[in-house]
């Protein structure tokens, strides 16, 4: 389904992200979530991981990132004292289970959680000692690792409630998004945020200065795709960039990751002390304030409150902000909206029950809006509007996913959820745009003999550079990369013969 290939600026990673492993509970059909936290962890060296496992909170968070079957496997072995024979494990799996089991073991070994000992039938599985210790601690409690956040012992005179935190997190986060879509009167976020946006190729410098605005950042096509994602994916996308950056800034990755995972285990609406935090984490605290992950009354405050953005970080809940508001008791309308607000009819007309300018701005990316009411926007999906979205780099699949995700509860009764006419038409429009595919390379013709032709053909096939060939007229088209080797091959053959 994925339409956008792995981001080109990370060639190293794209090799790592083996499709079988990309296990993307978070990554959507679209390409933004192409690298997940899993891929990031997979490429960490063993020493980093082992140090990470010293904190039970990190163990728990990483535990929740691996596939369900792997989690079960870990749990099963956690309280066994000896190694577990592979044979036993296999006898306990059903036929389908065995296939998934291979993947799980591979992933767990990559994370240095599991090791395979021995050969042949006598193979045994053994859990990493540090991880076992950490995980057991997490489950049984106790110890003095203090990895689940140190609460403040003193009463906060300016204590804030959950409702406030939710509101705070939302405004902070939406400020960034608003800035990206360039809504009227949006506030410019702080420089580190802008830097991250630029770095992650969501926005780039534009030469023309628009209006009276001081900033000269413009949204990129990746940025548009980013907007259509749900908050969880967006957040992780930025955090991964942050992790990448942390490496460059020589921050200790273990502390950075450890802090992230700790945030995920904190309790909403409680204040935690900053006192025991090391330098790196204090620094992160400051950065995370900008994203709304954390609330601090003053920069110098000795306590901080995690917001819901932070506490649900390590959960796989698909629409994160949904949980943000459904379980909170603030603002009834907001609650309703979170369950979906878009009604799409077979006549391409779209009704969006929302008052959020951000949502309207996002919809405006691919819907031509007709009318706006206080709590309702009416528009229709037209060829023009979809085409402009496509030219911005948004794919049809992304549009459809977005509409599905935000469908109004009233639509839930339909099966399929979206009118088939509309979803198919959007795909057809995309296809229309791709009626001509191009690929540069070279065409080889006028081979002297059928044998020559055949050899070059096989050779280019082996190199996987062949794009087109015609046996009758003995013509071969190879890609640009294939040009040189094939040319060499022909030359060598000429010399030989």
């Amino acid at each position, binding site marked *: 389904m994925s339409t956008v290939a792995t981001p080109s600026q990370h060639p190293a990673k794209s090799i790592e992200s083996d499709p079988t492993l990309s296990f993307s509970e978070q990554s959507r059909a679209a390409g933004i979530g192409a690298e997940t936290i899993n891929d990031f962890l997979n490429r960490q060296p063993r020493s980093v991981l082992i140090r990470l496992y010293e904190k039970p909170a990190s163990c728990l968070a990483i535990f929740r990132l691996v596939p369900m079957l792997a989690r079960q496997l870990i749990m099963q072995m956690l309280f066994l004292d000896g190694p577990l024979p592979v044979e036993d494990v296999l006898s306990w799996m059903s036929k389908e289970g065995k296939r998934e089991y291979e993947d799980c073991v591979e992933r767990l070994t990559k994370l240095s959680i599991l090791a395979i000992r021995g050969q042949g039938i006598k193979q045994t599985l053994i859990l990493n000692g540090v991880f076992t210790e950490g995980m057991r601690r997490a489950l*049984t409690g106790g110890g003095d690792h203090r990895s689940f956040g140190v609460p403040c012992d003193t009463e906060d005179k300016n204590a804030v409630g959950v409702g406030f935190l939710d509101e705070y997190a939302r405004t902070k986060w939406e400020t960034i998004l608003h800035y990206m879509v360039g809504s009227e009167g949006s506030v410019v976020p702080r420089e580190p945020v802008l830097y991250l946006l630029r770095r992650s190729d969501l926005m780039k410098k534009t030469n023309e200065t628009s209006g009276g605005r001081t900033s000269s950042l413009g949204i990129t096509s990746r940025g548009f795709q980013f907007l259509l994602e749900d908050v969880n994916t967006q957040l992780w996308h930025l955090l991964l960039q942050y992790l990448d950056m942390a490496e460059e800034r020589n921050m200790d990755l273990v502390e950075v990751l450890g802090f992230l995972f700790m945030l995920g285990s904190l309790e909403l609406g409680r204040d935690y002390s900053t006192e025991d935090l090391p330098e790196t984490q204090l620094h992160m605290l400051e950065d995370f304030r900008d994203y709304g992950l954390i609330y601090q009354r003053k920069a110098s405050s000795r306590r901080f409150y995690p917001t819901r953005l932070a506490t649900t970080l390590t959960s*796989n809940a698909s629409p994160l902000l949904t949980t943000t508001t459904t379980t909170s008791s603030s603002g009834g309308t907001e609650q309703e909206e979170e369950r979906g607000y878009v009604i799409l009819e077979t006549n391409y007309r779209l009704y969006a029950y929302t008052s959020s300018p951000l949502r309207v701005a996002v919809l405006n990316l691919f819907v031509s809006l007709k009318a706006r009411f206080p709590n309702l926007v009416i528009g229709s999906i037209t060829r023009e509007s979809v085409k402009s979205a496509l030219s911005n780099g948004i794919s049809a699949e992304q549009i459809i996913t977005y509409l599905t995700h935000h469908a109004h509860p009233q639509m839930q009764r339909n099966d399929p959820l979206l009118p088939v006419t509309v979803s198919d038409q959007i795909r057809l429009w995309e296809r229309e745009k791709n009626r001509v595919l191009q690929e540069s390379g070279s065409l080889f013709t006028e081979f002297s003999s059928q044998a020559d032709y055949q050899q070059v053909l096989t050779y280019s096939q082996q190199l996987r550079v062949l794009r087109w060939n015609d046996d009758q007229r003995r013509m071969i088209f190879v890609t640009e990369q294939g040009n040189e080797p094939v040319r060499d091959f022909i030359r060598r053959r000429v010399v030989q013969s």
Partner: protein
Amino acid sequence: MPEPSKAPAKSTDVANAGFSHLATKASSGQASKNSTDFLVLIIDVNPLSWASNFSLSSQASIASRELESVLDAILIFLNAHIAMQHENGLAVYAASLGLAKLLFTTAPFASKGDLGGSSEAIKSKPDANTYQHFRHVDNAVLQGIRKMAREVSEKDQTDTASNQATLGIVSAMSQALCQLNRLTMTDQTGSEQSLSGKTPGTLAAKSSMSSRILILSATPDASTQYIPMMNCIFGAQKKGILIDVCKMFGDDTVFLQQASHLTGGSYFRLDEQLGLLQTLMSAYLPSRSIRELLNLPNQDEVDFRAACFCHRKIVDIGYVCSVCLSLFCEPRPQCLTCKSKYPQSTLERFAQENQNRIK
């Protein structure tokens, strides 16, 4: 324009363009795989059976220490269940003589007010060394069970009649089913279904919540509970709720065996106490979504022969009252349950048949 390298990936995409229904089906299948799992744990804390099981050790202190160690295992198991998935739900009931109590639930609608002292636990300061969710569960369950034990022992002293009371396991099951029912209702999109009348079935099928009940049983069957127990089982079966049973000690209970068999759950009899944690972890932790990947312990033979109401004898051929369907192992003139009198002729005929067979 897309870069050329995309072309191969694209082709399937394009091919799917006209078949969006296929695409949506596939994606919904994916979603259901990560569905949330709601576990209801019913702990049998019947003091009589606990005491009798450890009567060999003869000292009350040892028995209570045993209980503590079992509780520890249970708490680790509960924590593991919550750890498995952030969204996993949990409710814990304790069933004792004549009563069943909700100790903890994550169901959003339930009032947490007077649940087993958990309110005090929430107020208390968190501790940096424990995951908060775990702490809430542990505190609620521990305090709840202690409170219950206190109440039961107090009641014991006041009236001895409570010794005759049966175990509140059916009460716990029916409460659990009610809560699960409510949970699946709030899970679906509200009230439209009852307006349109016939939709609930289709909606229920779509709901992504999978729920199961795990019973840690210590007490043998009570024959008086047969009918309510069976009704609970059928209720669970209709709602698609699994019932897992772990028999901690004591004899097998036929009712619970049937419960797990009829609802597709697993029944396991623990041979030694020490294995409790490992058994819980390996057999009862897997959520329904990954059960299809595993071979869980299963009963080969479930005894579906019925036990008669008069002597609790297992019968091959029984005599059934046509009014209340009570089952007896031998012909009798009057029904024990509904007091209906049977025609003399029938009784004579049966007597004759029996004689013939003996000949």
